[in-house]
């Protein structure tokens, strides 16, 4: 019996009970649609996260202070130690030992309420040096950035991100205005151009001031803490060399010979990307698994209907056996029938899932909520189809085997 004959028999069997076949297929269709759609949402989320991380700049390297790992091997998270100093930053900027590092800037963070007139807004204030726009890739929309002189003289000047401007100023031109950060007056000298990127850690929700002013007026008792150093490599491809150079310089300066005992940690965009990817992959898997459950339910539906079909067609099975069908012929016939059901349901499910994924961004409620644009990957399509056919095979085996084992005489007598 060849495949064509088997498919023709399957088609005959399925067409004999159109409504029932369609409903059984619907079970698989819904399952596959769910898988395709949820995996697409998961993929979309990871694309979104990747884009956000990408906007940090491919050549940026973050250096965080870290407690040297104790004998217990317990590492306490970032920023709990104060191991980074201005001298470290200067050494990294000397370019003697680190030709691949273009610039390094210190970062001191301070929280605090910002007020202008009667407007209040909360945003973190970043203390840094004049290389900030270059290293973090910010453009100025208006005014200018502060200079080395401003840093030396601890001038209370700030440059604001677009989000902060929108929240504080409305239609007023911010440049030249004086705002208060934790009740200290600062003069606005510039505004950054919009960087884009939404949600968590938006690049436009920034207030940047000379690090000396932040130390002097905002961080107060905590002293001259540098919470991180941001360095930029000459290009994305030199990030690895730059990381090696930074590590060498800092280990040398901190007089640490064993790199595993380092009191700082490096993180490049690639590192963050890797972490983000592993999180979003897990998310996609969980979503896929949840949708997979509905596929299993669809599979049980197939098994159920195939059992009914086999019982109904007992006499036909007897006739086929009487004219020479072997067990395996009967088995193949019903297996193929189950697989055509599930495969067809799967193919339709893929079509519906892909269509919904394509239409989802057009729903305005979703578009404005920052819901990720679903991305249907070819792998998930191939996988979903394969899995649905496999489900037909798996759940078809028991009914088909039952048919194949029927005794010809008893089957022929069946009314």
């Amino acid at each position, binding site marked *: 019996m060849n495949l064509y004959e088997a498919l023709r028999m399957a088609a005959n069997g399925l067409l004999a009970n159109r409504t029932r076949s369609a409903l059984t297929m619907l079970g698989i269709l819904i399952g596959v649609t769910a898988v395709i759609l949820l995996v697409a949402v998961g993929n979309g989320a990871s694309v979104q996260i990747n884009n956000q991380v990408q906007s940090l700049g491919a050549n940026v390297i973050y250096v965080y202070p870290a407690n040297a790992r104790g004998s217990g091997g317990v590492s306490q998270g970032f920023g709990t130690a104060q191991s980074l100093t201005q001298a470290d930053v200067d050494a990294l900027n000397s370019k003697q030992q680190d030709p691949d590092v273009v610039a390094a800037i210190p970062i001191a963070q301070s929280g605090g309420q910002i007020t202008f007139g009667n407007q209040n807004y909360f945003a973190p204030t970043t203390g840094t040096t004049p290389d900030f726009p270059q290293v973090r890739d910010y453009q100025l929309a208006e005014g200018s950035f502060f200079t080395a002189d401003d840093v030396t003289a601890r001038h209370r000047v700030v440059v604001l991100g677009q989000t902060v401007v929108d929240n504080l100023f409305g239609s007023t031109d911010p440049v030249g205005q004086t705002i208060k950060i934790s009740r200290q007056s600062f003069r606005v000298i510039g505004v950054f151009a919009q960087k884009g990127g939404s949600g968590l850690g938006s690049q436009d929700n920034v207030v940047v001031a000379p690090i000396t002013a932040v130390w002097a007026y905002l961080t107060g008792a905590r002293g001259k803490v540098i919470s991180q150093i941001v360095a930029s490599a000459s290009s994305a491809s030199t990030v690895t060399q730059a990381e090696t150079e930074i590590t060498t310089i800092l280990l040398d300066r901190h007089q640490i010979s064993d790199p595993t005992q380092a009191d700082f940690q490096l993180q490049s965009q690639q590192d963050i990307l890797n972490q983000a990817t592993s999180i979003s992959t897990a998310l996609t898997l969980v979503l896929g698994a949840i949708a997979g459950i509905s596929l299993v339910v669809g599979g049980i539906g197939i098994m159920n209907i195939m059992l009914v079909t086999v019982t109904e067609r007992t006499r036909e099975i*007897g006739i086929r056996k009487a*004219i*020479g069908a072997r067990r395996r012929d009967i088995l193949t016939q019903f297996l193929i029938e189950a697989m055509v059901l599930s495969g067809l349901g799967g193919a339709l499910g893929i079509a519906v899932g892909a269509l919904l994924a394509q239409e989802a961004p057009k729903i305005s409620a979703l578009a404005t909520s920052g819901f990720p644009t679903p991305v249907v990957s070819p792998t998930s399509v191939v996988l979903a189809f394969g899995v649905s056919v496999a489900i037909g095979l798996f759940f078809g085996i028991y009914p088909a085997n039952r048919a194949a084992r029927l005794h010809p*005489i008893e089957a*022929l007598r069946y009314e």
Partner: protein
Amino acid sequence: MITLEGVTKTYRMGRIEVPALQGIDLHVGRGDFVAIMGASGSGKSTLMNIIGCLDVPTSGRYILDDTDVAKLGDDQLARIRNRKIGFVFQSYNLIPRTTALHNVEMPLVYAGEGGRTARAREALSAVGLADRVNHQPTELSGGQQQRAAIARALVTNPAILLADEPTGNLDTDSSVEIMRLLSRLNTEQSRTIVLITHEQDIAHFASRVVELRDGRIVRDERTAA
């Protein structure tokens, strides 16, 4: 070609044993046309099923063309049914929602043989159904359905044709038509035919009559056709 020696068949229904055949010795040679007669429940169908390799004897031997059927597995029995035996049933047993042509092709599909459509058409023409090939069973009369069933039985060119009350559901005219067809197959193509019937008129078409009673052969004689 068909030899049964001391064949018994006992059905077991829970604790009760139903002896359907109690020691059958029978030889059917090539080209024989045997009518099996007997009262209802005498074991005719049981015997036929054993001859047709649809069932196996409880004891005794069944030799078909020098092969001891008891020693064969399921697949080999299926192969014998496919190649050596053609069945015709009282209730036609065509596969529903399937055209006469596809029904007749079916044994060839399981035989894995080519030229199916041409051979199925030929078999249907031979039984006078050339103009009904695309009819489904529900679109055929009883006599036509039975002729399609005979075409299906013949399409693999088997040596033996087994018919269990093939005219049981037919009126006299159709019955005579079917019996003439079988006679012709016997005389012109010297096919071995074993036929079960209740009716003396039908048995007259055969050249030998075997009568069963309570699972035993009580009469076995040649008739002058």
